[in-house]
């Protein structure tokens, strides 16, 4: 390829990168501006007199509907909901994947195919019965309800991840261990666990991103005090008390995005692998 076409190649790639980064830049720049500067300046200009006032307000004082204590309580809700849901669904998924690949029994393949449907359904088709069920067992208005829902509907994916990973582990290895007298859990702990680090990373990151970013379950199943941060962000943007404070909206949006962005920056490799692995079947 000659120099001219290589120049255009890089120019296009850089333009595309700028386009991808532009919204993040606009969000950041806006969040550090005062309202006056937003009204007078340009959307893409860097802040002239940077201020963190909007961040403070978004975190602890902005109104999200009736409450006016910022995103902070809902950010904590999201943590309380996401961490247990990720851990529980990942551990169960790991054991499921192990049982489905190395302890096959009659019907285990059918069982796996059956579970897969859970990856495909639009969740709208389970919302109504689930809302009534959570009401009946008293899980409404608490993060427990959301943890429960995210575990239940995350299992199909976590099982899929581990099943596809463990199917590559040679069966002879497990057979040999069984001959030596090792049982179901011993084999899992001693043989599978030490080689499972990559898939645990993929699964945890996938689940974390999915659950943290969820809006549908949050808006349908959470009470006003147990809402996750995505729902609170949407309420904050929609709650207008007089002047529209775009700088607060943008600071709030970045706060809500920060955990998944951090995970992406730190462990992007596993994030991509999860996306493509989920994509193979999902």
């Amino acid at each position: 390829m000659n120099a001219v076409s290589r120049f255009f190649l890089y120019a296009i790639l850089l333009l595309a990168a700028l386009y991808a980064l532009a919204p993040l830049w606009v969000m950041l720049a806006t969040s550090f501006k005062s309202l006056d500067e937003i009204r007078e300046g340009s959307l893409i200009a860097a802040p002239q007199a940077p201020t963190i006032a909007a961040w403070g307000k978004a975190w602890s004082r902005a109104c999200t509907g009736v409450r006016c204590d910022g995103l902070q309580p809902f950010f904590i809700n999201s943590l309380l909901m996401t961490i247990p849901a990720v851990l529980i669904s990942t551990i169960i998924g790991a054991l499921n994947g192990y049982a489905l690949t190395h302890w096959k029994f009659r019907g285990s393949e059918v069982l796996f195919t059956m579970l897969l449907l859970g990856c495909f359904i639009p969740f709208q088709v389970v919302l109504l019965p689930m809302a009534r069920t959570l009401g009946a067992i008293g899980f409404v208005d608490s993060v427990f309800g959301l943890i429960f829902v995210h575990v239940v509907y995350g299992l199909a994916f976590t099982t899929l991840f581990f099943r596809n990973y463990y199917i590559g582990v040679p069966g002879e290895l497990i057979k040999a261990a069984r001959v030596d007298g090792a049982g179901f859990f011993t084999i899992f702990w001693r043989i599978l666990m030490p080689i499972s680090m990559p898939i645990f990373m993929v699964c945890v990151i996938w689940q974390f991103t999915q659950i943290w970013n969820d809006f549908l379950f949050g808006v349908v199943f959470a009470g006003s005090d147990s809402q996750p941060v995505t729902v609170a962000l949407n309420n904050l943007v929609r709650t207008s008390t007089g002047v529209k404070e775009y700088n607060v909206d943008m600071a709030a949006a970045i706060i809500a995005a920060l955990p998944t962005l951090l995970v992406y920056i730190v462990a992007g490799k596993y994030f991509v692998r999860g996306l493509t692995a989920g994509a193979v079947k999902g």
Partner: protein
Amino acid sequence: MRPLSADRWLPKLVLSPTLLASLIFVYGFILITIAMSFTESRMLPNWEWAGIDRYVDLFDNDRFWVSAKNLAIFGSLFIVISMAVGLFLAILLDQKIRGEGFLRAIYLYPMALSFIVTGTAWKWMLNPGLGLERIVQQWGFADFTFDWLVNPDKAIYTVVIAGVWQSAGFAMALFLAGLRGVDSEIIKAAQVDGATLPTIYRRIIIPSLRPVFFSVALILAHIAIKSFDLVMALTGGGPGTASDVPAIFMYQFSFSRGQLGVGAASAVMMLMTIMAVMVPLMYAEAKSGNAR
């Protein structure tokens, strides 16, 4: 060998909670929703048989047709543009680019964001008063107008803009993985035969990516049909109901308007749509995968 008795039932015991959860919360709940769509349910479930009345209500509802039409517009543009941009970027990145990993990371980061965050950001950038419209005016095009966000005929296209921004990098990542899997011997042989690079892509590489096309289309279609949060954050279905999609229709009729029966019927329609799109695509994907 130690007695195998425990190992005989342990795997089944381990799988049983998941099996139970799937039977109740996936299969059972789908059946309940289907059943509810044939009842007189309004504010509360009411199991009185109503035949196909709720579906008649649904199909008589203009708002439902607006949402279906919007899904068709959004879905087709979102899928086609994301795939085109994704494939284009993947092919460019496949030319031994310096800093490829870095560029890839930049293209893909929107996928880590919540659709609510994406919607909030684009709502700000596309707002007619202070956003993009004003920048272009400040650049000297005083007559420039860009009011799609508040224009009932154009609002759904803003969802396409934001959706493509979020998902094109994802399509790129999948296509790039596919490109890396193409047998380099065949490409070398074609080069020896004097084929130019565009010809090689058009005649050899892209046709061999068929299964990847199906996977990408499958996932994007899935995202499109379920799309709810992006529309909620960006337009809220508005102005009025101009950018409603089925997921918003279902949510409002079920949880704000107290029309459980109609909500259930619309959820069933969503399930059918996903099945109608997924089953042929999965079949085609399996077939083209086996043919390789």
